[in-house]
């Protein structure tokens, strides 16, 4: 279980307490938080890997995947947002799907499932992001940039992320198709709390994601 976290000291204890009931091994990548995220996470029984500098969620996730790949024998790695927007029961169900059907990548879909209190602007933005992702990744996705995923060892050994910031999510989806990994989506619930709305991405960050991806595409074209 891999949880990237940046300044999540206020909520990470309860997120980790929920997780620890079902998962023994929780790795938190503290992405250079200025608050007590690392201390709280350690006290909650997680293994904490700490970035000395803030490098973005994509970078943190890559560090976590590198940790799981090189220091553990885990056959699956689940990524889970620290702010408590995901349900642990969804993660358990997705892991079961990955195991039972031997699927490399299980993605969570809030649009197959439920979103609680999702702002309309976010819904509209995600709809267009989804259209963009389908074209960019060539996968018939029903949701995109959802922080909850299950990756098999084969998947996290093959997928190489280069985007430090949020664009990594599209990059990861594209890597599924490129590496010919098996994948599926599972309906899940996303809870939009006051906290996650304040802490989460600003809608305008979509511009940065598209720019990062376009820049990368341009440079790797020739």
């Amino acid at each position, binding site marked *: 279980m891999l949880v990237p976290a940046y300044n999540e000291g206020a909520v990470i204890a309860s997120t980790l307490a929920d997780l620890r009931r079902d998962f*023994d091994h929780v790795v938190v990548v503290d992405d250079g938080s200025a608050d007590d995220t690392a201390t709280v996470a350690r006290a909650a029984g997680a293994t904490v*890997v700490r*970035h*000395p500098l803030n490098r*973005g969620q994509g970078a943190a996730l890559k560090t976590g995947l590198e940790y799981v790949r090189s220091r553990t*024998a885990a056959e699956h790695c689940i990524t889970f947002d620290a702010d408590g927007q995901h349900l642990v029961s969804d993660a358990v169900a997705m892991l079961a799907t990955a195991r039972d059907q031997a699927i490399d990548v299980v993605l969570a879909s809030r649009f197959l499932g439920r979103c609680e209190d999702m702002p309309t602007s976010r819904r509209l933005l995600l709809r267009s992001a989804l259209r963009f992702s389908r074209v960019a990744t060539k996968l018939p996705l029903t949701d995109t940039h959802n922080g909850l995923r299950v990756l098999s060892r084969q998947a996290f050994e093959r997928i190489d992320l280069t985007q430090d910031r949020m664009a990594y999510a599209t990059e990861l989806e594209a890597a599924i198709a490129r590496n010919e990994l098996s994948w599926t989506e599972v309906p899940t619930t996303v809870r939009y709390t006051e906290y996650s709305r304040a802490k989460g991405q600003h809608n305008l960050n979509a511009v940065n994601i598209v720019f990062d991806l376009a820049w990368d595409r341009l440079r790797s074209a020739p």
Partner: protein
Amino acid sequence: MIIKFLLIAAALGFGFLMLRRPTLANATAARRLLGALFVLAGIVAVLMPNAVTNVANLVGVRRGTDLVLYILVMLFLFVSISLYQRVHALDQHVTDLTRHLALLDDPRAGSIDLEPGEDRRDRLPT
């Protein structure tokens, strides 16, 4: 008239510059050569103000100040692009370094769910 070809060629050149991954040595050499060129051109322009106008007329620009403006715009583009590329490369280095450091001072390095002396590969499905 000639200036149009020069400006379009320069613009295309910058597009090309943006796309290819710069080898750092080349980029540095180009920057230094350009820098030296501009120092020389600056001195000449100060000593002989009419020379700028003459050169401008030569490439089909009426006023020397116009030519200076065109060159300035192109120079600005060049500087912006090469700075952006440098910052991007630095960013990647910092991230790699950060990752390396983070994994170095991991408190439970190598022990998360392995017995002492056990190789992680022993646990992998075959």
